[in-house]
């Protein structure tokens, strides 16, 4: 399996979050609160689930997702999932 660099994962996530939720990439910082900055409502989570599946081919589950607060949490979660950790 090809190893994906953490920085590439971060970059890819930032690009699709910025496009999908129409926020400037500069607003997306590792310690920023993801829900607040992206202004996520419940239906936005549908978008999030779909874009993650489309971009990384992984399914999110609610237990994991409830622990994600910051963008860094999100990067780590996605990175761990695609690395099979």
């Amino acid at each position, binding site marked *: 399996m090809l190893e994906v660099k953490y920085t590439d994962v971060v970059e890819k996530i930032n690009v699709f979050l910025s496009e999908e939720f129409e926020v400037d990439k500069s607003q997306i910082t590792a310690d920023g609160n993801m829900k607040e900055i992206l202004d996520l409502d419940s239906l936005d989570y*549908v978008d999030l689930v779909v874009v993650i599946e489309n971009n990384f081919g992984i399914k999110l589950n609610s237990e994991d*997702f*409830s622990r994600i607060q910051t963008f860094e949490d999100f990067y780590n979660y996605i990175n761990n999932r695609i690395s099979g950790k």
Partner: protein
Amino acid sequence: MSESWKGRSKGRLSGYQFFAFLIKKIGVRSAYYFLKVVALYYFLFSPKAFRTIHYYFRERLQFSKLKSLSSIYQNYVWFGQTLLDKFIIIAGIQNKITFDFDGEHHLHQMAKDGNGGFMISAHLGNWEIAGFLLKRVESRFNILMYENEREEIKEYLNKNYQQDQVNFIFIKQDLSHIFEINNAVKNGEIICVHGDRFIPGSKTFKADFLGKEARFPAGPFEMAYKLKVPCCFVFAVKENDDHYHFFSNTPSIETQSAEHTFNRYVDTLENMVRRYPKQWFNYYDFWGH
């Protein structure tokens, strides 16, 4: 602006158990007669429900004063009958209930395609009957319910529905339902949800409905659109004491916008309501008049 539904269904478990007891002891036909007395009680002593349903008949449907009053009473009788019928079917009690299915083949096709989908209904007629009869369709159905609906009724329903074909997804604050819905759809399963009620704080769409602006939940339409799965509108209404008519339109995948599906839904619902006005079972201030 319309008032939101408070997130609790009418009826207590004791009431449901009472219906079940009644059917078993005095039989279906006698229970129907007894219901007429119960309906009269609610007609006389349930002023809040009376006000909202009177507004619906008198102002929205423009019924005469006398026709509005008789329709309210009949509406209560129909409502009671739908509850009774639900228990007759679920409990497997012998009955004479028959069904017609307009568009049943659409559901078979949706199941056969295996892409999952949304069936959007309303509190018109007896959707639970429709859900139960979907045993004929080879797919797994997920019925969306609000978390704050009465726990006891959820338990009762859980016990009585066949777990292998019908699953309940509860709409929760932690948004776990979003993930459950997505997974169900990805597994080719069908999501059954009402498109006419919402809880405070949820995103809504507005539309002219029976001549006045009303709000509806955006969620069902947004989810079907975002997940790019087929969506159809289904209704199960009573034609008479023993006969139900099930309607489903042709499922389609929305390509324009969630609002487009929503507008089609409102048109379909309004047509159905005008055909079956006495089976509208939303006893709250739907239009916020």
